[in-house]
């Protein structure tokens, strides 16, 4: 439809990037390849180094060591205005003294393009805001400013578009809508998007690949499904969605199935999903994978009994139960409200069960 195909020259590579501020290491020996044309998310809590990484790619910070490449070109020491990279800033950073049209045309004009009309009109049509071209940014709503910020960046057809918490300032409903829109724009223009966020839902909705960052390092990288179903560290298991992590001792560790002991109950899991080699592990299972039944009912293969329901909250699509186990640990269970939900009340004795293949095991340290 709209020809804004990127003049992209290849994958983005970060090689052994370290960034030190005084005595604080923001990014620690980070190596990362972001394939051309992908929608990549850097996900992590504040202070994990994701924004610093983004700023280094944009050229707003210089790495202490390591190098940054786009295709075969080393851009580590290239000035920001000489990089084929554009950024959608956190609060959009639209120029308040320029019209929407001039904001979008800014990058084109700086590169000496004489006739910017066609390109600007096209990109404004893409974000469906052509009718606002003579307004000033202050006269636009947050969602509209956000789209202009995207338009101002992609009109330059960069090899790489960086998005720094682009939806942080929007309300929930608008954020959902913009997630879908951004994803659509990315597919439409085919530019590599690198998206920084602390919102796991945002990352999972939009990105093909997510890198979860913590303390300046990448904890785990993969597709949203992979990260959700197969977290490799405790941090990832807790940061993406909710996880129940229970201390366990490995009993047998041979063949396709691993058997562990949780306070006297035998729990099975596929050996391929045990990322630990130690005997003490953390066994994980997602709350929505667990079935909750009144004590004594027939259970699945993996089951834990003796739990007491301490809290129930109805959240529309599901009901969330908080169950206290005999060893005083709280376990979360989500039941779909599809008519088959059991009639369980606060204080009831329950048995929790789930299929072995939904179980994973992690190293208890880290």
């Amino acid at each position, binding site marked *: 439809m709209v020809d804004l195909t990127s003049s992209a020259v290849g994958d983005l590579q970060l090689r052994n990037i370290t960034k030190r501020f005084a005595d604080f290491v923001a990014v620690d020996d980070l190596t990362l390849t972001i394939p051309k044309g992908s929608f990549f998310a850097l996900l992590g809590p504040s202070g994990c180094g994701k924004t610093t990484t983004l700023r280094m790619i944009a050229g707003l910070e210089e790495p202490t060591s390591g190098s940054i490449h786009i295709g075969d070109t080393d851009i580590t020491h290239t*000035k*920001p205005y000489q990089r084929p990279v554009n950024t959608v*800033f956190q609060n959009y950073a639209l120029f*308040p*003294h320029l019209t929407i049209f001039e904001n979008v045309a*800014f*990058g084109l004009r700086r590169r000496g393009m004489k006739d910017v009309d066609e390109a600007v009109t096209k990109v404004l049509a893409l974000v469906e805001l052509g009718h606002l071209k003579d307004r000033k940014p202050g006269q636009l709503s947050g969602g509209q400013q956000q789209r202009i910020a995207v338009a101002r960046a992609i009109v330059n057809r960069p090899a790489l578009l960086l998005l720094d918490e682009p939806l942080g300032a929007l309300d929930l409903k608008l954020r959902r809508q913009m997630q879908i829109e951004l994803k659509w724009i990315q597919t439409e223009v085919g530019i590599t998007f690198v998206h920084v966020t602390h919102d796991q839902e945002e990352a999972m909705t939009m990105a093909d690949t997510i890198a979860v960052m913590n303390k300046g390092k990448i904890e785990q990288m993969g597709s949203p499904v992979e990260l959700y179903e197969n977290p490799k560290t405790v941090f990832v298991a807790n940061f993406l969605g909710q996880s129940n992590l229970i201390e366990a001792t490995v009993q047998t560790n041979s063949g396709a199935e691993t058997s562990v002991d949780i306070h006297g109950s035998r729990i099975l899991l596929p050996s391929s999903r045990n990322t630990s080699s130690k005997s003490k592990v953390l066994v994980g299972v997602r709350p929505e994978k667990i079935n909750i039944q009144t004590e004594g009912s027939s259970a699945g293969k993996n089951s834990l009994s003796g739990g007491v329901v301490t809290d129930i909250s109805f959240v529309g699509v599901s009901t969330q139960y908080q169950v206290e186990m005999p060893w005083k640990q709280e376990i979360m269970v989500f039941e779909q409200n599809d008519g088959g939900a059991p009639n369980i009340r606060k204080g009831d004795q329950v048995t929790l069960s789930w299929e072995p293949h939904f179980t994973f095991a992690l190293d208890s340290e880290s």
Partner: protein
Amino acid sequence: MAIAHVSPGTSTHVNPERTGRRIPYLLMLPGLLWLFIFFIYPLINLAETSTKTRAASQETGAFIQTYRFANYLDAFIEYQDQFLRSFTYAFMATLLALVISYPLAYAIAFKSGRYKNILLILVIAPFFTSFLLRTIAWKQILGAEGPVVSALRALHLIGPDTTITASSFAVVMGLTYNFLPFMTLPIYASLDRIDPRLMEASGDLYANGLTTFRKVTVPLSMPGVVAGTLLTFIPAAGDYINAAILGNPTTKMIGNVIDSRFFRIVDYPTAAALSFTLMAAILFLVIIYIRRSGTDELV
């Protein structure tokens, strides 16, 4: 309205909405009263004086109202050189102050780091001494035995008999110096308000440092530049202290003429007519300036 309930209403029958609407006027009252007593009333008085003529008795200070508007024309024709000189000096001082202040304000706003507050205090520090004393000090600095003249002589840039004081150069220097903070502070305030991310965004959009300065920083600092130039130009055009202390009889500004007409020659109508002409001229120039700089679109 929450504010209405806070108002110290003695009557319980006060309509809260009406009280709320009255509050802005109450807040403005002291200022308006002050302005009326010390500005509007003298202004009316001055207007009245400006069309008077000398009483038949020829007694000093005795004037009668004759509605002689030709006073204005006479005064203007007689003192047009001083008018022109006032605006030229004020313009030169404003330009110089802008050239000095902009880099200074820029450095304080963006490059001073933890010294920001100290530098701002230094900008304001001259106000701790009186305007008059500072101008007299400049007489010393630029005087024949002063450091400036000595240095220039040592460098053979001026001859051994050349002096700097009692010249138009000294008057413009004095005006520039005295009004410098009025230029620096508004420019600093508008530069300091600029979101640094706008400059990053400009760099991200292929603008180098100089282009970013021209296309982003300067336009966004225009409100400060306009405020600063007005705050410098207006008082400088009406100033008479600098010309009196640092100038000579050929550097008289219109303020000096008004001063001498009022207090030495005791020709109140001419002084009043000159005052009004000066006000009108400044107002006219300021309106053109604001229109042309188009600052109302900013902010």
